[in-house]
């Protein structure tokens, strides 16, 4: 009976770990999706109104924690360059992203506020296209690998349970 209960606990723990792994893929997909939306809004604001960078960031902060933190950082430490503040916020938030996606997003920090509105909108558009590709990859990985991770952890849990009982 104790072995059976122990096996159940081990299986549940493995499934939980697998579920967390699956969630990481979905969080990444969700995060990339949010950045894509934010970039589209930046493009529109800069292309149409040449909106001031920090006004734009505070607009985005209403919807997204990343931009809220970025604005807070600017309030606390306004003497750093925009790209430094952006990179620091990216590093601090431990976002569920791959190195390639981080590099791509860090480029956004170097583009924003550096050129005239139209050039920024154009460069952000390029980054957004690449980010959309990453988002699509993340969606496929979330569906396929997320399922595989859960199945693998479930079978690992069951194997351990069988070993424990026998």
């Amino acid at each position, binding site marked *: 009976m104790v072995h059976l209960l122990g096996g159940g606990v081990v299986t549940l723990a493995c499934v939980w770990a697998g579920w967390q792994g699956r969630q990481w893929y979905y969080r990444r997909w969700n995060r990339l999706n949010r950045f894509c939306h934010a970039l589209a809004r930046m493009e529109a604001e800069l292309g149409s109104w040449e909106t001031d960078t920090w006004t734009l960031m505070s607009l985005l902060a209403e919807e997204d924690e990343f931009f809220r933190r970025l604005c807070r950082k600017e309030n606390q430490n306004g003497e750093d*360059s*925009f790209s430094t503040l952006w990179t620091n916020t990216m590093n601090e938030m431990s976002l569920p992203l791959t190195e390639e996606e981080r590099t791509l997003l860090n480029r956004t920090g170097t583009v924003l506020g550096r050129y005239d509105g139209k050039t920024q909108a154009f460069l952000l558009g390029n980054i957004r296209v690449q980010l959309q590709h990453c988002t699509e990859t993340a969606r496929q990985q979330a569906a396929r690998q997320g399922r595989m991770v859960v199945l693998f952890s479930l079978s690992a849990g069951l194997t351990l349970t069988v070993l424990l009982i026998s």
Partner: protein
Amino acid sequence: MKRIQAVEQAAMVLPRELRLALLSQEPSQLNRCEEIRARAGRGLSWTDDTGTEHPVCPGSAPMPVTAEDLRMAVELAARSSMQGVQDKLANGFLPLRGGHRLGLCGTAAIREGSILQFRTLSSVNIRVACPVENVGAELLPELMAADRFQSTLILAPPGEGKTTLLRDLIRLLGARGIRTGLADERGEVAALYQGVPQLEVGTLCDVADGCGKGEGLLLLLRTMNPHVLAADEVSKPEDVEAICQGANCGAAILATAHGGSVEELGRRGVYRPLLEQHVFSRLVTIHRENARRSYEVHPL
């Protein structure tokens, strides 16, 4: 605001190390600071109220300044929004919060014959704005006739206090119920920040900035029905044309120009229409002795 606070506010656009080095100067010195200058490869300095420049030397050597420091100063001054300051960069200055101004100098990038922006910066100059109130109080009665403000030109060489006097006269006119339309092309007089004047121009002043003086004056004339049209540093033919037009529409004019005397002004072709059409009936000249300024009113 005391001058020392104004210096602290203006220095916010300097990178941290430069700012700390500047603010480590004696408070009595900072209280006399009118300009802060940084030159790449040379150093940081400040200019006092007599026009003398003092190097900032935190140790024994002058505080080093790099081109990157100057670029950073521009980014901080623009609040990371170059998209909103391209036109100002082309003119060589950026208005700062509090009414201060960052002047730029370096290798210009030219497009279609005019400065587009700077490829590299060699020096920046922060002019610290510290409004002095009531400098025009004694002067104003001489500029009035039968409760009407008489068109006045303030004439002085650069750095003598033309803008300060202009701003104070606008404020004093507002206190007398006279509505002024101010074309603040360089944002030095009212220094609008998100629509609110950062420097005291009174309650009856409408400000047009972000456009040329000529366009601003005509806009004010069309939309704000001013009793007085005001503009700082009239220097272009289109400014002169707009002033003449404003004067013919019944508004009194209050303007400043670089120069030492009416004769000197008359020798510069651009101002000739103003004198020929008798746009101004008063001329104010400013004289400075050390840190003291005196004003003289001449009928025209």
